[in-house]
């Protein structure tokens, strides 16, 4: 059943709240009263609950089933974490309360920071970035600040062609020019090409490990040493940290900065597109440039270092502030709950199971579907396929994805990474059971078999059993309707 828009069912005369009557008082607005109608419809509480409940049922979430979206780490979101984030002592605290009144909140930030540093074997962490891309920005600004402090302006950032789009976008956003480094035939960065490009104009290399093909970059340490020797820094995109968390410490691989998507590796829910949180760990070289504010512990008391003490030497080289306030507290609480629940042993098991699940999928499908780097050895947390096996079938990656919807699964990531044609990137995560994977394998094999046997014409118009059939995206972009005009 279709659910109308609130503008079609609500009324500006209806409200779903009751408020005390405002005591009579002379206005202090200086006559700037809003008089024209605004056009905001209201609904009584019951109708509002219905509207959003019914809308929710047109969505697919992890809570409904397998969600193997590559690069997104769609793992189970523990409900304890939701409960903890709603404790009034965390959720109902103002960021500018006196520090004595928020010692527990500061302790939590500090405690999570310590975990992140230990898990990565990195000496410093910036907690304020609000998402992965914001973390990248934080890392790149620290790199710019470090070069600037040395009086060594460098203009170029090297980015492998397999990188997430955010990497070049971020580098450009903070004023760098971006050069692309090709991948080799094994799906890794071409180390020789990269090393050859190093020079006095190169400020940094941005690299993802495990990379966007779901493969570990075995040369990273060697690259990092060379980059550092050339006076540049290594930024590691930590989007895929889940594959190695608890098992490999990026600090041991020589990286200078890496963001950690708390909403991926540490399971704060994606919420239909956010909020995220992207703390950045730093090497000794970059630590002095970390942004304000940050938390320090002194004899059991926690202190939030803000601008007011900007002249103090402990952060004299900080590159400044990234946003108002102190970061995504709600995500910190969830992440710490996740981390304490797993512990060092559990996190190691997380990476092992995530990697095992991906390899199990890879080896259960690579006889039917083409795995471009399947021959190079095990994958990490993602199994990558391409569309070679669809050649001459008339079907595409998108048809495979939409066909999966009809089987009750969320599709894998399509057409990314760009280094292979018609990519299908499958990330199962560690919270999927073998039974669930076997279900998916069965469905996937049936689809792939039908496709290659010429019985897949129905996939071209899939999904058939979803709330909507394929949507006209071209029309949406050509004649944008971005708000209700009725």
């Amino acid at each position, binding site marked *: 059943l279709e659910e109308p828009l*609130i503008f079609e069912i609500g009324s500006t005369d209806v409200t779903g709240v009751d408020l005390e009557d405002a005591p009579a008082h002379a206005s202090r607005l200086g006559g700037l009263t809003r008089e024209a109608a605004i056009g905001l419809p209201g609904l009584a509480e019951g109708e509002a609950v219905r509207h959003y409940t019914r809308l929710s049922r047109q969505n697919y979430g992890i809570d409904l089933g397998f969600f193997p979206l590559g690069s997104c780490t769609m*793992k189970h979101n523990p409900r304890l974490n939701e409960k903890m984030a709603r404790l009034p*002592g965390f959720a109902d605290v103002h960021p500018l309360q006196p520090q004595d009144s928020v010692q*527990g909140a500061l302790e939590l930030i500090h405690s999570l920071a310590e975990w992140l540093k230990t898990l990565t074997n990195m000496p410093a962490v910036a907690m304020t970035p609000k998402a992965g891309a914001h973390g990248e920005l934080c890392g790149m600004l620290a790199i710019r600040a470090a070069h600037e402090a040395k009086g060594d302006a460098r203009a170029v950032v090297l980015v492998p062609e397999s990188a997430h789009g955010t990497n070049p976008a971020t580098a*450009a956003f903070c004023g760098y020019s971006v050069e692309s480094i090709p991948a080799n035939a094994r799906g890794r960065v071409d180390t020789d090409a990269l090393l050859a490009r190093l020079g006095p104009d190169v400020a940094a290399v941005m690299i993802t490990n495990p990379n966007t093909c779901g493969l570990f970059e075995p040369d990273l340490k060697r690259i990092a040493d060379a980059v550092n020797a050339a006076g540049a820094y290594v930024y590691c995109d930590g989007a895929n940290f889940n594959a190695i968390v*608890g098992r490999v410490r990026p600090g041991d691989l020589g990286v200078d900065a890496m963001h950690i998507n708390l909403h991926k590796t540490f399971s704060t829910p994606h919420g239909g597109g*956010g909020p995220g949180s992207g703390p950045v760990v730093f090497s000794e070289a970059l630590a002095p440039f970390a942004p304000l504010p940050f938390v320090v512990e002194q004899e059991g008391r926690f202190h939030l270092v803000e601008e007011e003490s900007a002249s103090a030497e402990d952060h004299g080289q900080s590159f400044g502030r990234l946003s108002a306030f102190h970061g995504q507290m709600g995500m910190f609480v969830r992440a710490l709950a996740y981390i304490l629940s797993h512990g060092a042993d559990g996190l190691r098991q997380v990476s092992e199971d995530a990697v095992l699940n991906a390899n199990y999928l890879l080896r259960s499908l690579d006889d039917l579907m083409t795995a471009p780097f399947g021959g190079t*050895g*095990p994958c990490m947390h993602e199994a990558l396929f391409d569309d070679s096996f669809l050649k001459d079938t008339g079907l595409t990656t998108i048809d495979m994805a939409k066909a999966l919807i009809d089987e009750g699964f969320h*599709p894998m990531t399509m057409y990314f990474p760009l280094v292979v044609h018609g990519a299908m990137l499958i990330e199962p995560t560690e919270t999927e059971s073998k039974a669930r994977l076997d279900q998916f394998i069965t469905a996937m094999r049936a689809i792939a078999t039908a496709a290659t046997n010429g019985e897949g014409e129905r996939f071209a118009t899939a999904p058939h059993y979803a709330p909507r059939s394929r949507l006209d995206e071209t029309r949406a972009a050509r004649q944008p309707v971005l708000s209700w005009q009725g």
Partner: protein
Amino acid sequence: MRYLPLTPDDRAAMLAKVGAASIDDLFVDVPAGARLAGPIPGLPNHQPEMLVERELTRMAAKNMAAGAYPFFLGAGAYRHHVPASVDHLIQRGEFLTSYTPYQPEIAQGTLQYLFEFQTQVARLLGMEVANASMYDGSTAMTEAIFMARRITKRPKTVISCGVHPQYLRAAETLCHFTGDELVMGVPTICCTPPTEDLADVIAQIDDQTSAVIVQNPDCFGHVADLTELAAACHAKGALLIVVVTEVVSLGLIKSPGEMGADIVVGEGQSLGVGLQFGGPHLGLFACNSKHVRQMPGRLCGETVDADGRRGFVLTLSTREQHIRREKATSNICTNSGLMSLAFSIHMTLLGEKGLRQLAALNHARACETAERVSAIPGVKLLTERFFNEFAVQLPVPARAAVRDMAEMGVLGGVSAERLWPDLPDLANVLLITATETVSPADIDALVRALTEVVSK
């Protein structure tokens, strides 16, 4: 491990299928120097849910939760009562555990509420188009500076002294590296009345000016008519960017759009989201249609499906990083999806009627608080025209006053020094906010506490 469903038997069977003798075989690409034989040293092992809950509850209990005390803080984050149904609904698993709606056929729930949200935000701010949310108000403001530069191709942005200083710091940080020029007003006690400041701002506008940024109500609570400023901007070919940190004010005061703003950015945490110790909050971003292709962030648009039914999709994504890479309008990827849902539900519960009542109640509470507080000997009201927030001059340093009041169990405001540590002139200025959550008894408690601390 309660979250990990694989059993030892499963693992053995799967390793066999994979052809690996042990899990270590799957990590062969990790260089020897980075291999760890066991769990990372120096960290505890997994814990039962009960003990994790106990530990986090212990930390939470060390904080003064706003709801348990008379509470008068604002300055960019406002405490409002959020109906219980909001939090109930955003926890629907289908909302909570979904991803960015890249597969619109099974994401119409998210897409439709984003479309509704965009419409609500655009109307609230008085603009034609709003995006599907940003991280928060401060990062939205920085994005607005860059967006204006893309439109005007000019280097300079003039910023009023009434803009939240942490917003300013965030913009400064980035502009330092991008080369965008910022001309910033410096607040003083005497400059704070908005008309004088706006005159200063207008005087700064020249043909290199890309945009003027002004906050309304500003960080001292001042409410200003921006119509003249808008005209002055447009006369010089500059854009007017208006920052709104307290969206509830828009139930009572004229919207930025009605006063001529070209871009409006805002912080939406007042509705649905709560204080959250500063995050996650909710960035609002709106402009007029002609500039939409220079707008950062995600947009949801209406279309039809193959069967002709109305549906919604993410659109104009050629602006975005995952398509355009280094040529994107912004590097932003994640938005504040769940917070925009909370905002939208709260707004739907309020409706226009409720929003107007809520704004009126806020204003009344603030007026009463201002009257009572300014009657305390030695305390002077600095903000004449305000919505729910105002500044007062104390006879003592405000920072100590805030601390002392907290010890007396009253969260009595924000000292201006906390926000402008470099401006000693403001050391005695206290920012006080009163929303509908403030009871008459709370006002009494504030007056008692403030009377005591100023007479020390």
